[in-house]
């Protein structure tokens, strides 16, 4: 059963009855259990029981190789956070990085070496497994090409070791990843002579034209790009570059764009050349008229683009991501690079050298050739590590059938993935968080990886296994690997000085402050030519296959967090879906959840529909990463495997896989599927939840001050709560007197006045006003890209249960923090606005007054606290919460299937059934920092405390701090002209201040009826 248990089956029930009856009769009159105190036998010297220990390491989820800090308690990894010293992510972390913990503790990991006999996996001892491996190696005896070693795209020492090892054993290495940027690298080789993926830094550009690159989500190195993009686009200081997204289907990146233009897929290159020519970049035959026709973009729009590019140099242009790369992908990118030269972006915001190293991956073509060799039967021994060809190119190349030709097949996969299932022996590798290693995503940025904890399962690091094998084989191979362990090998490559090495470990590696920017390397060349993409198949829809934001190439598909979290664009969770434009949906007469049959000629699948407001009507978009046949209880049987569905087409020049390669027939099956789709109508119904301010007004003194000091009390408020002048310059709504709140003093309200604002328990609670802080948060909607990293971070930090599809259909998700995504009709189309919505910690909280047992109450530091084990579950608080951010435990969710429960944060309880829960502003982190400050006998400094959500945010959109301190960043942010409160007219006086999104597309702020009436 791939979902948490809700309701109980007959058998379980009988068990339960038995157990309960037993428990009742036995323990009914016994006291509860006394725990055992299990102390260390030999305590490690760096571990103080009860305090967390942090290890610097490198994330292993994708080739971007971000630096991470892993929090451990009593030897268990609990939380992954970004390493501020790492130039790639600078302390931020993406969804996948946050969720790597669920890879580490995944219940479907291979617990130890396995040997397949008669189609069943038998446990074997490591020694035997290793012996078996050695035997097979010996049998092959180093004959050239007899061993084929499939690996992922690796960098750094591990990559070197692999090559060395393969060399020593005459093994052929095939490094394959589905999203290997082959076209980009090929084009870069032609244009700049580099062969890497250029570093992109929008902050240096004035104008950003993305021809389909989803660079805030799945393309390139999203964290680094998001950081640059924020500087480019968040309009701090009133300057805001313009971002135009040109793509067939509105991507997450498109949501942040100032303008979205639909384009016929595959014609991005033509557009680039057309623009280049129009901008006087030479070339011929690409007059705007023709371009307009090819790309199906109005000519005047193109003319406008040209003008804007003309006026805003340097302008950065990006090409299509995987979804848009057809058989002409390389030419397309070549054209894009050419246009960048014309626009002067190369060397400023487009930095080709050194660029991101994707590892020496062979392209799709290379993989196919390898499979043919496999097919030919010359390969005796097949080794697979950290790659999953059976899932990625199974259909395209007949990998499974070919693999069966090899005599013996060994997988080093930590998971039972599709390829491991074909093998005879699994020697499970450590998870990245358990391993030694390093990564060099960009030449000169060398991040170290160290184990944050002892292995969860009986696994061994493949590097050690290989070195062991080499030793065993004796001869030259043995000589090449003198080191006892991979760690020693690592140290040797890092200069051989163990102390130095350890010093670097604590820093996270040998890290420059900034990403190295070699500027525009050589190369150059003339105007590239471009052919239209070859798109096979019949039908009126072009299939646009794009990488799923969380599951990407399918690696994330077995992590409940990632399945439960709604997709940032469609807000669909747990299910696989296909996206249609509203027009197409109308034409086919389908709506959310209606099942379509999609026929590509060489295959037919059925998927439920999700509607994407901005899409070309002749495109159907489907994310990859679903449809696993193996890989684990959560991933299996969910959706379809798009890699298999796509035809085996490739980009001529680079040999990279052409994902944009087929047309499909689409028909309405008339069936419907209960699709989990959060987000109600998706519109904000004029309720001013997500507000925006015209760019023109930014910086300019607003007509009406955002929140004038000492404004009259909103109608129907008690004076004791009503706004009063704050301390110097602080808008009143921030230091609002709250029930027995220190801030009441700040507002010079007399104790007596407070006393009368509510009944006070006779237990000295009024001593509260000794508190010195008023915690608050500011969220800049201009910076938020909706990536949902904060949501995962929140799940990881706060032991939030995931509830599974059945319950999500009922709207019972437990998320304390959700990203509300609203579409707004503005002139020139639709504008998307993201609002991270969590408990607002209202100064005047509706939930507090209605709780009969004080389970929720106001704390002296302005926090709205929920005391879980005082809660009796009347749910009145949730009914009275206008933001609906409280989550109720409808069941005892047993979703922490061991060992997932190892990840639980000991600083917070897990909530039992019948209890209300909600965001706490990460109270435990506040406490931790207070303790540290007190130990150092100092006051808390601004920025000491960062809640989980704020910590990981790629654009640092979330600021947390002390509103009672007029100089704190959060106070400053809250005083910003753009600041506002959601549902301010309800006078809930939230502690969370939002900063209006800066929009190019609106001339004036949309009126807020409800508020207007209050402020009139």
């Amino acid at each position: 059963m791939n979902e948490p248990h809700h309701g109980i089956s007959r058998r379980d029930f009988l068990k339960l009855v038995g157990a309960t009856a037993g428990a009742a009769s036995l323990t009914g009159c016994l006291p509860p259990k006394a725990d055992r105190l299990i102390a260390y036998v030999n305590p490690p010297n760096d571990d103080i029981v009860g305090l967390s220990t942090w290890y610097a390491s490198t994330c292993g989820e994708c080739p971007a190789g971000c630096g991470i800090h892993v929090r451990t308690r009593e030897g268990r990894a609990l939380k992954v956070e970004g390493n501020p010293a790492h130039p790639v992510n600078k302390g931020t972390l993406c969804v996948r990085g946050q969720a790597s913990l669920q890879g580490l503790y995944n219940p479907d990991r291979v617990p130890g070496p396995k040997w397949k006999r008669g189609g069943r996996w038998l446990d074997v001892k490591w020694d035997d497994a290793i012996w078996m491996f050695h035997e097979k190696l010996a049998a092959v005896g180093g004959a050239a090409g007899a061993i084929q070693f499939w690996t992922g795209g690796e960098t750094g020492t591990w990559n070197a070791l692999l090559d060395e090892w393969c060399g020593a054993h005459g093994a052929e290495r095939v490094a394959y990843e589905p999203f290997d940027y082959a076209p980009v690298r090929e084009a870069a080789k032609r244009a700049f002579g580099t062969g890497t993926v250029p570093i992109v830094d929008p902050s240096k550009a004035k104008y950003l034209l993305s021809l389909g690159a989803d660079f805030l989500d799945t393309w390139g190195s999203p964290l680094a790009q998001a950081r640059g993009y924020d500087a480019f686009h968040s309009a701090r200081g009133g300057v805001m570059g313009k971002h135009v997204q040109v793509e067939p289907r509105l991507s997450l990146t498109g949501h942040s764009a100032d303008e979205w233009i639909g384009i016929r897929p595959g014609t991005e290159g033509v557009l680039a050349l057309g623009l280049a020519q129009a901008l006087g970049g030479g070339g011929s035959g690409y007059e705007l008229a023709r371009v307009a026709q090819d790309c199906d973009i109005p000519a005047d729009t193109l003319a406008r683009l040209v003008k804007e590019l003309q006026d805003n140099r340097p302008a950065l242009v990006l090409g299509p991501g995987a979804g848009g790369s057809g058989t002409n992908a390389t030419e397309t990118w070549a054209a894009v690079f050419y246009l960048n030269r014309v626009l002067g972006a190369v060397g400023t915001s487009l930095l080709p050298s050194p660029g991101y190293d994707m590892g020496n991956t062979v392209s799709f073509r290379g993989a196919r050739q390898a499979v043919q060799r496999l097919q030919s039967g010359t390969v005796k021994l097949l080794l697979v590590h950290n790659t999953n060809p059976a899932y990625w190119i199974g259909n395209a190349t007949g990998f499974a059938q070919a693999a069966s030709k090899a005599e013996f097949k060994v997988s080093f996969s930590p998971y039972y993935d599709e390829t491991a299932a074909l093998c005879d022996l699994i020697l499970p590798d450590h998870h990245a968080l358990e391993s030694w290693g390093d990564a060099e995503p960009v030449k000169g940025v060398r991040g170290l990886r160290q184990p944050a904890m002892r292995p969860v399962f009986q696994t061994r690091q493949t590097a050690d296994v290989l070195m062991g094998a080499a030793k065993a084989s004796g001869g030259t191979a043995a000589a090449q690997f003198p080191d006892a362990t991979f760690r020693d090998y690592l140290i040797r490559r890092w200069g051989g000085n163990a102390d130095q090495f350890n010093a670097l470990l604590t820093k996270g590696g040998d890290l420059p402050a900034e990403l190295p920017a070699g500027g525009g390397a050589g190369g150059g060349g003339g105007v590239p030519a471009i052919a239209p993409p070859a798109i096979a198949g019949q039908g009126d829809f072009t299939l646009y296959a794009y990488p799923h934001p969380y599951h990407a190439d399918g690696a994330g598909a077995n992590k409940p967090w990632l399945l439960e979290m709604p997709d940032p664009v469609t807000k669909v969770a747990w299910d696989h879906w296909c996206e249609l434009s509203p027009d197409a949906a109308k034409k086919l007469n389908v709506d959310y959840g209606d099942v379509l049959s999609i026929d590509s000629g060489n295959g037919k699948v059925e998927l439920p529909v999700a509607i994407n407001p901005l899409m070309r009507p002749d495109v159907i978009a489907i994310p990859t990463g679903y449809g696993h046949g193996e890989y684990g209880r959560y991933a299996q049987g969910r959706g379809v495997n798009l890699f298999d569905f796509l035809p085996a087409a490739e980009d001529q020049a680079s040999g990279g896989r052409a994902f944009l390669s087929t047309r499909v027939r689409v028909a309405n099956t008339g069936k419907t599927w209960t699709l989990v789709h959060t987000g109600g109508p998706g519109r904000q119904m004029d309720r001013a939840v997500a507000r925006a301010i015209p760019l023109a007004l930014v910086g300019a003194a607003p007509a009406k001050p955002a929140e004038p000091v000492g404004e009259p009390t909103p109608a129907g408020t008690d004076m004791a709560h009503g706004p009063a002048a704050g301390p110097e310059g602080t808008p009143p709504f921030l230091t609002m007197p709250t029930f027995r709140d220190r801030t009441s003093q700040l507002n010079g309200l007399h104790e007596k006045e407070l006393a009368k604002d509510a009944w006070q328990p006779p237990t000295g609670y009024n001593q509260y006003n000794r508190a010195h802080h008023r915690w608050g948060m500011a969220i800049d909607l201009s910076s938020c890209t909706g990536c949902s990293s904060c949501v995962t971070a929140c799940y990881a930090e706060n032991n939030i249960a995931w509830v599974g599809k059945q319950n999500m259909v009922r709207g019972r998700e437990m998320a304390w923090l959700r990203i509300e995504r609203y579409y707004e009709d503005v002139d020139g189309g639709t504008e998307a606005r993201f609002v991270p919505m969590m408990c607002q910690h209202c100064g005047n909280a509706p939930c507090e007054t209605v709780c009969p047992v004080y389970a929720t109450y106001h704390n002296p530091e302005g926090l709205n606290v929920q005391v879980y084990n005082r809660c009796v579950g009347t749910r009145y608080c949730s009914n009275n919460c206008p933001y609906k951010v409280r989550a109720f435990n409808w069941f005892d969710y047993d979703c922490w299937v061991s060992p997932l429960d190892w990840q639980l944060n000991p600083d917070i309880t897990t909530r039992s059934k019948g209890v209300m829960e909600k965001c706490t502003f990460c109270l435990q982190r506040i406490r931790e920092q207070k303790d540290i400050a007190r130990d150092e006998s100092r006051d808390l400094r601004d920025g000491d405390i960062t809640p989980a959500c704020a910590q990981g945010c790629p654009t640092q959109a979330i600021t947390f701090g002390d509103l009672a301190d007029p100089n704190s960043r959060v106070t400053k942010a809250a005083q910003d002209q753009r600041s506002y409160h959601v549902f301010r007219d309800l006078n809930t006086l939230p502690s969370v201040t939002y900063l209006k999104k800066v929009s190019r597309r609106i001339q004036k702020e949309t009126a807020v009826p409800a508020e207007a009436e209050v402020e009139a």
Partner: protein
Amino acid sequence: MARDTGLTYRKINDDIISIGHRVGKKWLIVFGLDLLVLTFGICCWLYQLFVGLGTTGYTRPAMWAIYITNFVFWVGIAHSGTLISAILFLFRAGWRQAIYRVSEAMTVFAVMTAGLFQLIHLGRIWFFYWLIPYPNQRQIWVNFRSPLVWDVFAVSTYFTVSAIFFVVGMLPDIAAMRDRETGLRKKLYTLLSLGWRGTSRNWKHYAQTYIYFAAFATPLVLSVHSVVSWDFAMAQNPGWHSTIFAPYFVAGAIFSGMALVVTLIVPIRKAFKLEQYITDWHFDAMAKLILFTGNIVTYSYLTEFFIAWYSGNPYERHAFWDRAFGPMGWAFWIMATCNCIIPQLLWSRRNRTHIPTLYVITLFVNVGMWYERFVIIVQSLNANFSPWVWRAGYKPTIVEWGITAGSFAWFFMYFLLFVRFLPTFSITELKEILPRPFRRRKEKAA
């Protein structure tokens, strides 16, 4: 206002006291079925207890639904009882004598049922006692600002008072039964009659106590349901946050209560041939009251909609639009039909006194009033402030229906026992309205 119904003191004693003996097999069958339903309800509840509230259809935003609906419904039912027995007594409305015992019983049992739902809807019922203020080692108190705490007080007070009122009122009748009965029943009645001997002192105290409790219970009729209404009015949800709620709920309560009284009395009257005691005159009076309160309720509905529009408050406007024409609008229209349109039939005297018609109408009213609460609770919650969580996702599950059915069974269990073992009609007061015997002899003499 004595009316000659050809009754004599003796006949009254015979008729009323014999009811308990006249029930026969039918009673057993009905009672058995009732217990069966009750058991099912209990099982559903236990299942919910084990597995969690998730076994209901509850969801965000509809965190309250059928259980609170039932709570309000039963509290409402309770009201007419006290109205008839206390207020009408103080106003000396003659037609109450025949029916007030039944309605009092109904009151007590209805409150007992309502109380259950306060507990059933808790997420952690095993801590229900935290809602009661008492000195404890934790040294914490309940939150007196919370309407739910007011509820606890209101309901418990109401139950205590109406129960005492009920018992005290029965004293002389029980004594009368004691004097008739033998064996076990005699023992029981001896116990219950608290040594009543019918002396003038007894009667004097009885009369005083009765008036006293009547006076004491009267304000409760208004207060209790006002408090219940504040569960909603004190919250700020659109559709709840309204000053009209208290009077509106009280009227609704009496409306539904009277309806249920009729629903209960008609079968009893038929089964035990009490046409002489409960005449068209009584039904006519009750029907008028139903019509009157029904129209108040209707008026309140209209006011709500008008204010929602007139206030210009976008939240309110949306809430009420959604209430009538939203995805769950059907519930609203059931309510409107049953509570506003159908009762209008009672304008004609023929309908008021034509028992079958009246009976069907009251059944509709019962349904309608249940839906009124459902509409107020579920639909208002669905149309809350935050569009992001809008979802008409609430669908009751078998567990909820089971517990609801169980609550009716629970109520009728008590009522059936009451009919079987206690004086279903007030012997004393029925006699009071008879012309005094010796005066009649005088008349003959003359």
